[in-house]
């Protein structure tokens, strides 16, 4: 009987459990969960603040998930080290856990750049976990003025979540636009305008230079008074445990297309990894929930002796604020062409290079965008489809009869 150990208890871990069990019903599975909660998906925390979900519904899987899958979860303990020679890991409670196959699903942690006077701030919170969220929820009152450092996905979702709970929400970011990692100027401007129309205040191209108690002095010289500070500058992959064991690590743990690390019988999946993006043909950290699950599942199946690949990863994001949705996927490589259409309420930007759709940014109108995503993921030659029609609207009708017959007439 094989011994499987998973470090971490996020969606990659859940994928790993399901992957193992799809292949091996017998082996033991041990999950090392630093958090005290059964698997949930971290992006849900903003929806929790918005009251679109609650702690119960946030559970990623049914209550019986671990028992159904015969997985032993050790809540509240962290793995400290991997001993590849002995094939065991050591825990912060002094235990060691032997493994035959190990999957590292350690995720990421907030990255907080050194800021002067940060220690003088009383109410400061990262926004990553349920515990962060519960603490933040407790601290925020209808009179609160909230300053959020970071206008990325986390910061803005936090802003949306707190909307209506606080008196004033200000978001600042060193970048000159919101969602700088996924949106270009034009799209970001539309999104920013929409957020501003919903009462979020922005200070962009600037960040806090110094904190003095409840006031932040911005690089621009402005001072922002606040009651609650949210630190959402960014995240870093949790790679230490692999790096310390001698595994190859760059910005994330390097994995191949079966999610193997450079260490024997050690796999990794999720936000802690760095892997190949086919849209840009580069290796990068793509801390995305769908990819995390798919990596976890891939790792699990391969750990249990199966053979599947996860070799078509692309970055993609579905995010929305106050009813304005935004879908992005892929990349905009050097020298790509852009097809654009836009009006007051929506923007569509498609990026094409070498007869391939490499990426897109869509704001406002989110209808059947997965058809575009599939074009990127499948690296479909655009000369084989009716791209002139596809540009206007994603549709299978423009994908050619052969494709249509394949996907609509048979089992897919």
């Amino acid at each position, binding site marked *: 009987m094989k011994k499987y150990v998973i470090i971490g208890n996020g969606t990659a871990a859940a994928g790993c459990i399901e992957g193992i069990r799809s292949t091996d019903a017998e082996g033991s599975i041990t999950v090392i969960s630093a958090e005290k909660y059964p698997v949930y998906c971290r992006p849900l925390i903003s929806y929790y603040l918005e009251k679109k979900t609650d702690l119960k519904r946030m559970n990623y899987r049914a209550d019986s998930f671990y028992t159904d899958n015969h997985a032993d979860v050790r809540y509240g303990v962290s793995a400290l080290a991997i001993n590849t020679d002995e094939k065991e890991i050591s825990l912060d409670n002094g235990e060691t856990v032997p493994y035959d196959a190990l999957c590292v699903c350690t995720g990421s942690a907030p990255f907080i750049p050194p800021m002067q006077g940060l220690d003088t701030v009383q109410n400061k919170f990262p926004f990553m976990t349920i515990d962060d969220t519960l603490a933040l929820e407790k601290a925020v009152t209808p009179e609160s003025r909230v300053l959020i450092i970071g206008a990325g996905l986390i910061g803005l979702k936090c802003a949306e979540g707190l909307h209506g709970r606080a008196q004033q929400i200000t978001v600042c970011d060193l970048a000159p636009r919101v969602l700088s990692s996924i949106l270009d100027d034009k799209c970001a401007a539309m999104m920013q305008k929409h957020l501003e129309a919903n009462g979020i205040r922005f200070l962009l191209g600037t960040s806090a230079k110094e904190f003095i108690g409840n006031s932040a002095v911005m690089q621009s010289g402005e001072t922002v008074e606040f009651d609650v500070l949210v630190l959402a500058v960014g995240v870093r992959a949790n790679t230490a445990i692999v790096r310390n064991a001698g595994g190859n690590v760059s910005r994330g743990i390097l994995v191949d297309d079966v999610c193997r690390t450079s260490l024997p019988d050690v796999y990794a999946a999720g936000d802690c990894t760095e892997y190949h993006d086919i849209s840009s043909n580069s290796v990068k950290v793509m801390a995305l929930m*769908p990819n995390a699950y798919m990596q976890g599942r891939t790792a699990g199946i391969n750990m249990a002796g199966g053979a599947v690949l996860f070799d078509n990863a692309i970055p*993609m994001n579905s995010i929305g604020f106050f009813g304005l949705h935004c879908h992005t996927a892929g990349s905009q490589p050097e020298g790509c062409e852009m097809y654009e259409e836009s009006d007051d309420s929506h923007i569509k930007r498609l990026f094409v290079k070498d007869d391939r759709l490499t990426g897109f940014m869509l704001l406002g109108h989110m209808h059947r*965008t997965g058809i575009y995503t599939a074009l990127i993921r499948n690296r479909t030659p655009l000369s084989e489809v009716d791209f002139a029609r596809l540009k206007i609207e994603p549709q299978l009708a423009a994908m050619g009869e052969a494709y249509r017959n394949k996907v609509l007439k048979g089992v897919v």
Partner: protein
Amino acid sequence: MKRIYVKEQWCLGCRLCEYNCAFANSGMTDMAKALRGKQIYPRIQVETEANGVTFAVSCRHCNDPICVKSCIAGALSKKDGVIEIDHEKCVGCLTCVLVCPYGAVIEDGSGVAQKCELCMKNSCGAPACVKGCPNNAIVYEER
């Protein structure tokens, strides 16, 4: 398992399937009451090829469903071959819309995702689009 398949050779592009779908999932007993004066968000959609060929697209209930894998809320799941959506859990992030290669998961007009669940959850009993197709262009069968 039985799935919905389209026979485009017989599709007339009348779009009755879309309206039958919208009605079946409206929870109402009168179609006029359910749909009159309303924008519909059917879970099956008729497409038209440049040469005039029409066909309806709805969830393929894939063997390896990327929407289920991608759902951040664990709201999508596959049970007995049917990909279902738990509207209690769905937070409306629309990741499923972003990943479905067939464009079969769609937003319901209120920010929540919806998709064909083979009319298993409504009072129709069998897929309304299939029942209502006047030319057997949509069939529900084993393949």
